[in-house]
């Protein structure tokens, strides 16, 4: 449905996207996962015809996004990272406006947005600027869907939204997917990655890996140990000083250690106790997407510095 072929894009000296290729199948819920500044928005803006790539091309349902930009504009629903509806217009006015510029009406495609829009209807006369974060997001989604797009592109839709609204939002995406909409979504939240059909991990403009969330986790080749009940900073120092445990990262109140040679929790415990930490608890863990991302990122950086 959507194919990126060798996309490059620089902003002056800064290379935002480097040789990115991937494709998204019809009806797929595809996630671009990566930190801020990884190049997610750049890729989405190229796809939605508002930005030109330096090289490479993107095909949307077999049509080139540069040559056939009109086709893409009619068939893509885009929700930019920043809330970009008219804050001084009401909920209904916004929706009506976007329906009109897509040459359609609210009634015509009401079916698609019904579930989402019903929650907004009680606030129909409220100005968009006066809505809560979650409500704004629902309105933006409704506006992006009003013309029944083939592909929905959502740039960090849950950024700055509370946990309940985030969950609701992903439920909405699932039901849209069930209705046959292809969805591309970007997010910096790793927990959301597991809700996608397939994900691309992206960092510094490069794709680190593309797979199903399960496939990504299965590829994790190292042993994961979870360290708890320690003061984070001294424990990290102790682990990093030992080459065998140097890949240690803090995850909230825990530390995740990715090890190649060490295979037992006791060995890690030993390293920590040698570093002066008392009663550390170490257990073997199952890696999640974030672990895979951190691991791939470190390897990527090593490769990069080796090339340099």
């Amino acid at each position: 449905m959507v194919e990126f072929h060798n996309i490059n894009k620089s902003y002056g000296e800064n290379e935002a996207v480097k040789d990115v290729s991937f494709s998204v199948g019809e009806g797929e819920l595809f996630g671009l996962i990566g930190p801020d500044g990884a190049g997610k928005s750049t890729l989405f803006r190229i796809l939605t015809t508002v930005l030109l790539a330096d090289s490479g091309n993107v095909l949307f349902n077999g049509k080139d996004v540069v040559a056939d930009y009109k086709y893409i504009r009619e068939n893509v629903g885009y929700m930019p990272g920043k809330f970009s509806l008219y804050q001084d217009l009401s909920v209904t006015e916004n929706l009506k406006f976007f329906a009109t510029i897509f040459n359609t009406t609210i009634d015509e495609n009401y079916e698609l947005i019904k579930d989402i829009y019903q929650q907004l209807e009680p606030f129909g006369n409220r100005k968009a600027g006066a809505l809560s974060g979650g409500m704004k997001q629902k309105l933006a989604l409704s506006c992006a869907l009003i013309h029944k797009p083939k592909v929905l592109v959502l740039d960090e839709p849950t950024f700055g939204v509370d946990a309940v609204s985030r969950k609701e939002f992903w439920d909405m995406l699932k039901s849209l997917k069930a209705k046959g909409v292809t969805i591309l979504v970007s997010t910096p939240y790793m927990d959301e990655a597991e809700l996608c059909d397939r994900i691309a991990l992206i960092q510094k403009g490069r794709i680190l890996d593309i797979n199903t969330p399960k496939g990504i986790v299965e590829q994790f080749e190292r042993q994961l140990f979870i360290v708890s009940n320690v003061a984070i900073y001294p424990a990290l120092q102790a682990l990093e000083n030992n080459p065998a445990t140097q890949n240690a990262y803090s995850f909230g109140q825990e530390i995740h250690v990715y090890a190649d040679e060490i295979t037992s929790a006791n060995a890690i415990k030993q390293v920590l106790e040698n570093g002066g930490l008392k009663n550390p608890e170490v257990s073997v863990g199952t890696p999640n997407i974030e672990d895979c991302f951190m691991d791939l990122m470190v390897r990527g950086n090593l490769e990069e510095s080796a090339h340099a």
Partner: protein
Amino acid sequence: MRTLKFLLQKEFLQIFRNKAMLPIIFVLPIVQLVVLTFAADFELKNITYVVYDADKSQTSERLMNQFAASPFFKFKGAMANFNDGMSALDENQATLFIRIPPRFEHDLAKEKSAQIMLDVNSIDGQAATLSFSYASGIINSFSSEIRQEWNGLPEQLTMPIQVEKRYWFNPEMAYKNLMVPGILALLVTMIGLFLSAMNVVREKEIGTIEQINVTPISKVHFLIGKLLPFWVIAMFEMAFGLTIGYLIFNIPVNGSLILLFSYVSIYMLVVLGMGLWISGFADTQQQAMFLAWFVTVIFILMSGLFTPIENMPDWAQKLTYVNPVAYLIKVLRSVLLKGSTFAQMQWEFVKISLFAVTMLILAVRGYRKRN
């Protein structure tokens, strides 16, 4: 068409929902017209003056009486010596210092000529020139009066050629008749340029343009949606301002209003096109604001409203060829005061139409839906 209708509806909704907008539309023209027309009056009255009369003769007293009788001058006191007079100028107690030397009458009688010194505070050059010329007028007429008396010449011989002035198209040289059309021109220019320059940039700033750019809406539709509401507002401003001018200042309307509004309707395309062009390359409202100001100030100062274009150096006069405000003022004055017809104004129509086409092309090209 339906899209356009909705675009317009949306723009008007936003304009009238903006609380600052209505005062701008209604209060601004009244304030500008009323305040500026009264304030920017170049007719000088009540020029303050002090006198040091060292002669204290009958003749010098007669001359001073002439000054006192003039409506242009206001007596501020007799000075005891030269220094007092100069310090009166220094301390802004008077604009003009008249010094009559000792032996004034004596010289006049014996030598047939005498001197008077006039010191004018020239901080304001224009006022100084006027004060000086009014004073010279009084002195000249006094000297011919004296000559006539003393030499006993018949009146006709004193001034063989007499100049009779008539200000055509503005017989009373009423300043407001010149000012009101000029200020109307400034008003519609400012309103049009600022509103249009700020509007698209505002969509850039709040990010809505990103959403719009992804939609299939065409560039031209979008820009018409931006242009038309402000065009309507500007035309309304023109009508509103003209009504105020007519009711309060009684400015004459000698020409056809249809002709006038046809011209303004094309003129507004120039201004709005320029505004949209500015907002095409400005990234923030601040940038747009400064650019719009820069352009407006130059246009206004070089429009011929405050200084006649004929007084400008040659290169500056050439610059006014590309100043649409200068054209508008000229046309407004011609139609209102002179009653010019379309036949007389057709070149003005051609010029402004070319201008409009150019600006609109620039505006459409300047707005990009993709980077």
